């Protein structure tokens, strides 16, 4: 049993919650985006968490500092950093299939022939609740890291 394993597990959770907060931030930032690369309005993104089974454990630093730009990844996936067994990982970032909201604004450059503009269906309240959940879960896991740190320090005290 290795106390640093606790840090790896909690590190994977810190990373997953951080990605969740990033996705919420992206959703809120694009709440009014009517035009994306393929010409459609922005679609709300969801993260999907999965429990990591047996795998090759990375270390705490690589978990936290993994250079994975969320949107530089291939669509719908997040590049895999080795998640320790028992940890959590973001298995996918999927787009919501909700239809866009249509608002009448004939002056808008993206208005269709009837004068309606398609806006993403993003509710700021839902996003804030999700962000709050991500923040609280991040705090919970960082207190688990603190606990593991305290135990490692205590076992080092035996040497004194």
């Amino acid at each position, binding site marked *: 049993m*290795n106390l640093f394993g606790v840090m790896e597990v909690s590190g994977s959770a810190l990373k*997953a919650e951080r990605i969740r907060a990033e996705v919420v931030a992206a959703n809120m930032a694009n709440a009014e985006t009517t035009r994306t690369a393929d010409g459609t309005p922005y679609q709300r993104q969801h993260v999907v968490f999965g429990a990591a089974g047996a795998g090759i454990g990375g270390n705490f630093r690589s978990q936290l500092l993994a250079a994975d730009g969320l949107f530089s990844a291939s669509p719908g996936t997040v590049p895999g950093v080795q998640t320790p067994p028992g940890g959590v990982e973001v298995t996918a970032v999927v787009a919501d299939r909700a239809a866009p909201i249509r608002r009448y604004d004939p002056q808008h450059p993206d208005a269709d022939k009837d004068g309606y503009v398609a806006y993403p269906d993003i509710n700021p309240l839902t996003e804030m609740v999700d962000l709050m959940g991500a923040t609280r879960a991040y705090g919970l*896991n960082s207190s688990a890291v603190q606990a593991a740190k305290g135990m490692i320090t205590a076992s080092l*005290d*035996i040497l004194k």
Partner: protein
Amino acid sequence: MHISTPLSGELARYLDLSSAELKLTAENMANLDTPGYRTLGFDFAAEMARSVAEAGWARRGPGKDVGPATPKVGKVDGLLERPDGNNVSIDREGLNMAEAQLQFRIGTELLKHEFSRVSNAIHEDK
């Protein structure tokens, strides 16, 4: 000659199980929002008794080292399940984490005293 005593061996097992408890708690906390995840845990008292019995048997036997204590981990039942199939309870995990920390603290303090007792015995002639 032995520097380690039966008590220090048992304390080492106590510390093994406390850190296993902390690791499981951290895993449960990490999967707080994972759909379908089930809380993992083990019976501390039963595992401690089994582990101490194992160590005692090994001491009396051919003197083989039994290695670190590894508890039998299972799914915890009787917890409230959310609609997404996840049954992690923050209250339970928070309490378990506090308990594991205190147990580890107790274990290290007792181990320190045990080692200083051995050290005193070594330095008795001075």
